[in-house]
Structure formats: structure tokens, C-alpha cells
């Protein structure tokens, strides 16, 4: 347990104290106590920047289950440090924002901050764990805490629906990911990411390699809301806005990105990885931005925009993986996609965080988030308007904001991919280009919608619940900080490049590091009159035209039938699953014991029968069999007659008496086979049970008392015949092949010398194996007590 472990676990420990702080310091907003923690963690993690800058890493191991190779290994390199700083940095700002956003009086703050701290700790655990199982543990904790946070206002039905949906989808992916991790373990014998990376060369031809890849990508795609699993993210917008800003834009949805980046050194070698990651990513980017335009809710626009931007980062990571296949000396030429992915990851966290906070402010100050009701808020909320302009223009990819730089690099990466003459990219690369460019146009349009439909245009006071006014300063601090970062990162991008981005790239594509141990990266603002710039200019021109004529072409969204959406598919499949499983249950759980007995006996016949056939187990030999006497034959005939009479008896009384005759014949068999004790007992027991049967017979209710003949049913007949045949076959086989000697010789020799009794059966019952007798006595005692209580302690009709 080192300080690093404590840093990961500290949010969990702190969460324990939240309820006490909430209860005993009611007049101070609980958020103030919580705020200290992420700030302290942020300061702590920023000390590691120096370490990772010099190309070093930090590894601390704490034993958890060493015998299974599961240890809590915390590992800091460029990539995990980048995420840890994002989590704690944005975490601090979000908590500060939430202090002003959530009311001290109305909300259950203890719940909120416990969930949030759980999430923060889990997220830190995800990014800092080297062990895959530990990573998975924290991964599921993020799903769980996200579920709790989305359902924070649990009295609303939509919150519960969103929480359930996100839970089902992300847990589905998480379980698939666990499968992938286990496959990795089967191939390499280690859960440690670092050790797996060193074993890549051996496992890349393994049969499990591609299944592991697909399973792990399922986990990453569900978490990071890629097509077609993005559907949970828009519904997760029912969470409080600080949660949306933190989880569903800056951190949790990037866990999938982190996973893809983290395992790139393992899987990037395979073409499947490149195609899946980049194609799904680029299509998600296009699809998300296309759908964002039709939304009318501010947070829904932002949710689809997050989907789109995550798709963009994902596709960049995929394209970056393709760089491994290029044998070119000019490495940085192709690694630009990875650089763009990391840079945009940071940029997205800044501007999307601020935009969510803006949406929260608008909601908080006007009472609605519907852009059809909003408009003309510019003069009421000048600061909020400025922040949203900065965020939205950065999102659209305009200078002088950081989104411009990463969007340019995105285009560069997409253009480069067509130049790589691998995997038929010379023909298919154009596909990337089209999706990227069209997606960017839609991105531009919805960014403009976001700002101008909210803050400009006609002010509609009659549609608003409150009179709008500027938010309190405390609420504005966090978005202001984020917005200023947006601008700072544009003007001084290289403060990030060496300190954060370069070490992160070293983790993602370690095999491409140049000779000096660094990537030679320099983010420049001006590339000259390059194709990327013309693409951006094209985006702006067409985007502006598209925005201005939005009302005319919005109709195309109605072309897409409601029945064919993914949400509809999700809902229908849930309902269908529910219905079909209940139908299935109703089909076989009939409530009739007769049917269950048919299942049991049918399986009995099938399993034993096939075993006998497959194992060729049937054998029949008369070796060691005793000669059959005449009495046995006659007695067996008597027994058979009694049995047949029982089955075909017309009245119940006949059946009972016939059954009695079978029992007495059995007693005679015992006599014949020299078992006096058994014969005695059998006679008494048979008499008593016949008497009991008669008792039951007498008390049958009048109404249904029909002395009816047993009706013939073919199924029952076949099953009865089958069971009889199988048991006979098994008995014959077992008797024909005796595996070992019997132990009865011991009892014969020793029953008098050791136990002092001449009746061997009784000596066995009470001496050699007295324990069985003890518990059979207990069984009889229980039965007697049971009968007594059933008769005496009947619940009376009126008490029911």
C-alpha cells in the first residue's frame, strides 16, 4: 500500500464520511468538503508530469490475490497520467459547479457526493491499473456509479429508464470485455498489460487473438457510446447536469477510448483492429453529428455531439494504429493521427465540459432546455453567452480555439490514411474522407444551433418559467476556467505537447518512438495553404449555408422512419425478450406435477440411455448367478399379477388391496432369500401403509369421487416402459460386471468377535453402521411431528 494506491482508494474512503459530514454540518454545503479531495489529487498527480516527461514510468504493486496473478498494480505512464489529470481536474471543476447547481435544501446531497466520489475513485482505478482484472473491477464500478448518478432523481420515470438502459448496455459490454481479458490471459498467462505487450509477437497468430480483440472492443464501444451502442448516452442526460458534464462528456465515456489506446500496442498489429476501430469510429462521428442537428433539447444536442466527437477520437486511434504497418522512416508523418486523438481528447474535455455547464446554467436560470422556447438570452446572460460561443466554435473547429487545431489534425490524419497503400486503403480511404468531411459540416451546424438558437433571435418570455438573469458567479467559475483553457490551448498548444501528449503517445504506439526517445511533435497553427485548410473553409461555407437554410431541409429527418431507429430496436427487443421468456416459462411450467414428472423421467431415460449406447456399457453375463427355483418363479408371477391388477384396477379399493398383496409377496421374497428381519419389518410396514391408504381413500371428497378407470395415455405408457427398461438394463449390466469384492465377509467374521451379537443385520444397524440408524430414527421422528403438526396446527379458515 503506497501513496499511489491510497490516492486511488482515497475517494472511496472519503465517500464513507460524506453522510456524516452531510448530517452534522447541515449549514455548510457538503460539496465544499468534497472539493478538497480532487484538488489535492490533481496536485498530487501533476507531480508525476516530470517523471513521464523524462520517459520514465511508476509502478507500485500491492498484493491482492497473488495466487491467481491478480494484484493491485498501479502504473503511471503518459497515457494514464493524462487521464488521471483529466479526471481530477475536471472533477474539481464539476464539484465546484455542483455546489452552486444543487440546492442545499432540496437535494439529497449525501447521495450525490457519495456516488460521485465512488465514480471518481473507480475511474482513477480504471486508468491507473495495470492488472486487467483490477481494471475490470473498477470498470464495473464506473458502470454502477454511473447508473446511480443517472437515476439520481429516482422518482422520475425517465431517469430510471435512462439508468436502466445505460446499465444494461455498459454491463453487456463490460462482461464481453471480461471475456476478452480472460482470453488474453489464456494466451499469455498474465493479467498485466505490460507483460502482455511484451508477448505480442507470440500471440498475434493465436486463434483466440481475434475473438479477444472483438470482445474487448465490444467493451470499449459500449462504454464510449460508439455506433450502434450510443443509444444509452442521450437517455443518460436525465442525470443532473454536473453528472452529464463529468461522466458523459469528459471522463466515463472516454474509458473506452482509454482502453483502445491502452491496448493498441497489443492489437494494433492486426488489420481487424484498424478496420473495426476506425470504421466504427468514423461512422459514429458522422451519425452522431447528423442526429445532433435534429435535437431540440440542449443536452440532447450535446449528447449526440459527444457521441460524434468520441467517434472521431476513436477513428483517429484506429488510423493511428495503421501507422504501425508503414515501414517509413518519416514516422511523425503517419503518427499524426494518434497525436490528433490525444489532443482532441483533451480539447473535447475542456469545451464539452464548459458547454454542458452552460446548458445547466440556461436550464437553471430559465427553467427549460428546449431550444424552441429559448432565444434572445444574449443580453440577459452575457458571460454565459461568451463561454458558449467559445465552446461551440471550438467544437465546430474554428480558430482561434483549440478545436480548430485538432480538427485540422483530424483532416490530416484522414488524408494520410488514403496515402497508406495497405489494406486496400488507396480505394477505400476516400470513404473516410467523405464521412469525416460531411460529419464536420453537421458538427458545424449543430454547434451554431446550440449558440444562436439559445442566445440570439427572438426573446420569448411567455414560454419561460422564470425571468432569466445571469447565473451566480460561483456557477460561472468552472466554465470560465474551461473556456479560458480552450483559448490557451489554441495559442500555446506546445505546453501540452511535450509534457502530456508526447508521453501519452509513447504509451499508445511505443514501437514508433524515434531514436532520441521522443516523438518529434510540434503543433503548429499554420500549415500553409494545405488541403486541410481548404476542407475547413469548405466546412464553414457549406455549414453556414446549411445552418441558415435549416428550416428547409430539416424534413429529411422525417424520412427516417421511427420504427427503424436503434432506440426502437432496443425497446422492442427488451419487450420481446420479456414476453418470449415469460411465454417460454408458461409453456413448460404448467403447474401440473404430471408434466414435471414427464420431464424428469424423460431426461432420466434420455441421459442414461444415451450413456449406455455411447459408452457401450450394456453387458450381460450369467456368471455367478444363482439358479432360479420354482418358488421364485411362482412368487414373481404372483407379484406381477398384483402389480398389473394395481395398474388396471377399476376402483381405488381394488388397487389398494392389490398393492397390499404386492407388499406381502415382497415379504415372502424376503423369506425366500433368507432375510427374516426384513420380512418382519416389511409385513408390519405394509400393513400400516395399506391401512393409511384406506384412510386416505375413505376421506376422498364426495363431489369428485368417481371410481373411474385409469385412462390410457401413450406418453405415459412410453415413459413408464422406458424407465422400466432402462432400470432393468442397468441392473443387469451392474450385476454382470462386479467391480470389486463385497465387504460382507468382514461382517460375517467379526459381528460376534467385535460386536458381541449373532444377528448380523442388527449388529450392522446398531453397531457397525449405527449412524445411519440414528438419522433414520430422526427421519421417523420428523415425519411423526410433521403429521402431528399438520393435523393439529391447521390455520383456520377465518385466519387465512
Amino acid at each position, binding site marked *: 500500500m503506497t501513496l499511489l494506491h491510497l490516492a486511488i482508494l482515497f475517494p472511496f474512503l472519503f465517500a464513507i464520511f460524506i453522510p456524516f459530514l452531510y448530517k452534522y454540518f447541515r449549514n455548510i454545503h457538503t460539496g465544499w468538503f468534497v472539493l478538497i479531495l480532487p484538488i489535492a489529487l490533481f496536485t498530487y498527480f501533476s507531480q508525476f508530469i516530470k517523471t513521464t516527461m523524462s520517459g520514465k514510468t511508476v509502478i507500485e504493486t500491492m498484493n491482492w490475490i497473488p495466487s491467481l496473478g491478480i494484484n493491485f498494480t498501479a502504473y503511471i505512464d503518459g497515457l494514464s497520467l493524462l487521464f488521471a489529470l483529466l479526471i481530477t481536474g475536471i472533477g474539481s471543476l464539476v464539484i465546484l459547479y455542483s455546489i452552486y447547481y444543487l440546492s442545499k435544501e432540496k437535494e439529497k446531497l449525501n447521495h450525490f457526493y457519495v456516488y460521485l466520489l465512488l465514480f471518481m475513485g473507480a475511474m482513477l482505478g480504471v486508468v491507473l491499473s495495470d492488472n486487467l482484472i483490477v481494471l475490470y473491477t473498477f470498470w464495473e464500478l464506473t458502470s454502477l456509479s454511473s447508473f446511480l448518478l443517472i437515476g439520481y432523481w429516482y422518482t422520475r420515470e425517465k431517469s430510471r429508464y435512462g439508468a436502466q438502459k445505460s446499465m444494461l448496455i455498459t454491463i453487456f459490454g463490460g462482461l464481453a470485455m471480461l471475456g476478452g481479458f480472460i482470453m488474453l490471459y489464456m494466451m499469455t498467462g498474465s493479467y498485466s498489460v505490460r507483460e502482455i505487450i511484451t508477448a505480442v509477437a507470440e500471440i498475434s497468430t493465436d486463434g483466440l487473438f481475434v475473438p479477444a480483440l472483438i470482445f474487448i472492443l465490444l467493451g470499449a464501444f459500449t462504454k464510449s457510446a460508439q455506433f450502434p451502442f450510443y443509444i444509452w448516452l442521450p437517455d443518460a442526460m436525465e442525470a443532473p447536469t454536473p453528472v452529464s458534464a463529468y461522466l458523459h462528456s469528459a471522463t466515463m465515456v472516454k474509458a473506452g477510448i482509454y482502453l483502445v489506446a491502452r491496448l493498441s500496442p497489443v492489437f494494433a498489429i492486426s488489420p481487424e483492429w484498424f478496420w473495426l476501430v476506425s470504421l466504427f469510429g468514423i461512422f459514429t462521428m458522422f451519425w452522431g453529428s447528423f442526429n445532433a442537428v435534429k435535437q431540440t433539447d440542449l443536452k440532447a444536442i450535446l449528447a449526440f455531439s459527444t457521441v460524434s466527437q468520441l467517434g472521431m477520437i476513436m477513428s483517429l486511434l484506429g488510423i493511428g494504429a495503421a501507422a504501425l504497418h508503414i515501414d517509413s522512416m518519416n514516422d511523425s508523418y503517419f503518427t499524426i493521427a494518434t497525436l490528433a486523438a490525444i489532443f482532441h481528447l483533451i480539447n473535447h474535455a475542456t469545451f464539452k465540459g464548459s458547454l454542458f455547464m452552460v446548458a445547466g446554467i440556461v436550464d437553471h436560470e430559465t427553467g427549460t432546455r428546449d431550444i424552441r422556447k429559448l432565444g434572445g438570452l444574449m443580453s440577459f446572460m452575457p458571460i454565459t453567452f461568451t463561454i458558449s460561443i467559445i465552446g461551440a466554435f471550438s467544437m465546430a473547429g474554428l480558430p482561434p480555439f483549440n478545436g480548430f487545431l485538432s480538427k485540422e489534425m483530424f483532416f490530416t490524419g484522414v488524408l494520410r490514411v488514403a496515402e497508406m497503400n495497405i489494406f486496400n486503403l488507396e480505394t477505400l480511404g476516400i470513404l473516410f474522407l467523405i464521412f469525416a468531411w460531411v460529419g464536420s459540416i453537421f458538427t458545424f451546424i449543430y454547434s451554431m444551433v446550440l449558440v444562436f438558437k439559445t442566445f440570439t433571435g427572438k426573446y420569448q418570455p411567455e414560454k419561460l418559467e422564470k425571468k432569466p438573469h445571469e447565473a451566480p458567479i460561483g456557477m460561472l467559475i468552472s466554465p470560465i476556467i474551461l473556456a479560458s483553457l480552450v483559448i490557451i490551448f489554441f495559442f500555446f498548444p506546445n505546453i501540452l505537447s511535450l509534457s502530456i501528449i508526447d508521453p501519452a503517445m509513447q504509451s499508445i504506439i511505443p514501437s514508433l518512438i524515434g531514436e532520441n526517445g521522443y516523438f518529434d511533435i510540434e503543433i503548429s497553427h499554420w500549415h500553409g495553404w494545405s488541403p486541410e485548410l481548404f476542407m475547413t473553409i469548405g466546412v464553414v461555407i457549406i455549414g453556414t449555408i446549411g445552418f441558415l437554410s435549416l428550416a428547409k431541409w430539416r424534413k429529411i429527418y422525417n424520412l427516417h422512419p421511427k420504427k427503424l431507429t436503434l432506440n426502437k430496436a432496443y425497446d422492442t427487443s427488451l419487450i420481446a425478450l420479456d414476453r418470449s421468456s415469460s411465454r417460454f416459462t408458461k409453456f413448460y411450467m404448467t403447474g401440473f406435477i404430471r408434466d414435471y414428472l414427464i420431464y424428469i423421467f424423460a431426461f432420466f431415460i434420455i441421459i442414461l440411455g444415451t450413456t449406455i449406447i455411447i459408452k457401450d456399457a450394456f453387458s450381460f453375463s450369467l456368471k455367478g448367478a444363482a439358479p432360479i427355483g420354482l*418358488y421364485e418363479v*411362482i412368487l414373481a408371477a*404372483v407379484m406381477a*399379477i*398384483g402389480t398389473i*391388477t394395481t395398474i388396471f384396477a377399476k376402483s381405488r*379399493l*381394488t388397487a389398494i*388391496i*392389490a398393492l*397390499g*398383496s404386492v407388499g*406381502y409377496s415382497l*415379504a*415372502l421374497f424376503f*423369506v*425366500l432369500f*433368507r432375510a*427374516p428381519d426384513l*420380512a*418382519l419389518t416389511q*409385513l*408390519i410396514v405394509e*400393513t400400516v401403509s*395399506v*391401512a393409511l391408504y*384406506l*384412510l386416505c381413500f*375413505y376421506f376422498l371428497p364426495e363431489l369428485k369421487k368417481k371410481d373411474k378407470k385409469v385412462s390410457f395415455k401413450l406418453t405415459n405408457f412410453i415413459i413408464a416402459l422406458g424407465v422400466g427398461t432402462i432400470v432393468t438394463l442397468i441392473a443387469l449390466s451392474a450385476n454382470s460386471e462386479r467391480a470389486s469384492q463385497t465387504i460382507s465377509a468382514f461382517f460375517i467374521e467379526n459381528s460376534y468377535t467385535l460386536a458381541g451379537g449373532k444377528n448380523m443385520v442388527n449388529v450392522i444397524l446398531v453397531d457397525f453402521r449405527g449412524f445411519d440408524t440414528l438419522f433414520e430414527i430422526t427421519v421417523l421422528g420428523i415425519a411423526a411431528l410433521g403429521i402431528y403438526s399438520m393435523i393439529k396446527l391447521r390455520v383456520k379458515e377465518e385466519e387465512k
Partner: protein
Amino acid sequence: MIKVILICSLFFLTFSILATIYRLVKGPSAPDRVQALDALGINIISGVAIFSVLLRSIGFFEVILLIGILSFIGTIAFARFIERGVVIERKHSE
């Protein structure tokens, strides 16, 4: 010689058991069946006794006694059941 006689008597017993069983199955009324059961018990007693001689064993003498008692109790119980409808009468307090 004695063995032949014993086996012969066993045969006759067997036939008489089969006859009682026929009555047991066919018996038009319940009392017929009860009587058949009683006769069956006595036949079984004799059968067991002959077996004991044949097997030269005294281990089954208790069985004989037991069958005698059970057959008696059983017949009485059936008789009561047919006559009064119950086997064990209760004292009615009211």
C-alpha cells in the same frame, strides 16, 4: 422323503394362494376381498413354516407369529370399517 412331501404341500399352498388372489382380484364385493386377504395371510403362514423346515432355520418363526397377528388385526379393522365406517371410534365430548 420328507422333502418331497414338503415340496408337494408347497405346491398345493401355492395353488390355494393363487385361488385366493383370484378372489381378491375378482371379488364382487369388499367383504369377499377381505376374506380372501385373511385366507391369504393364513396360507402365507403355512408357506413360511414349510420354508423354515426346508431351509432348516428358526429365523422365520417370528414372521409366522407376526403374520398371524397382522392378519387378525387387519381382518378386524376391515370388518369394523365395513360395519361402522370407521376403524377407530372417537369419544365425542358433546
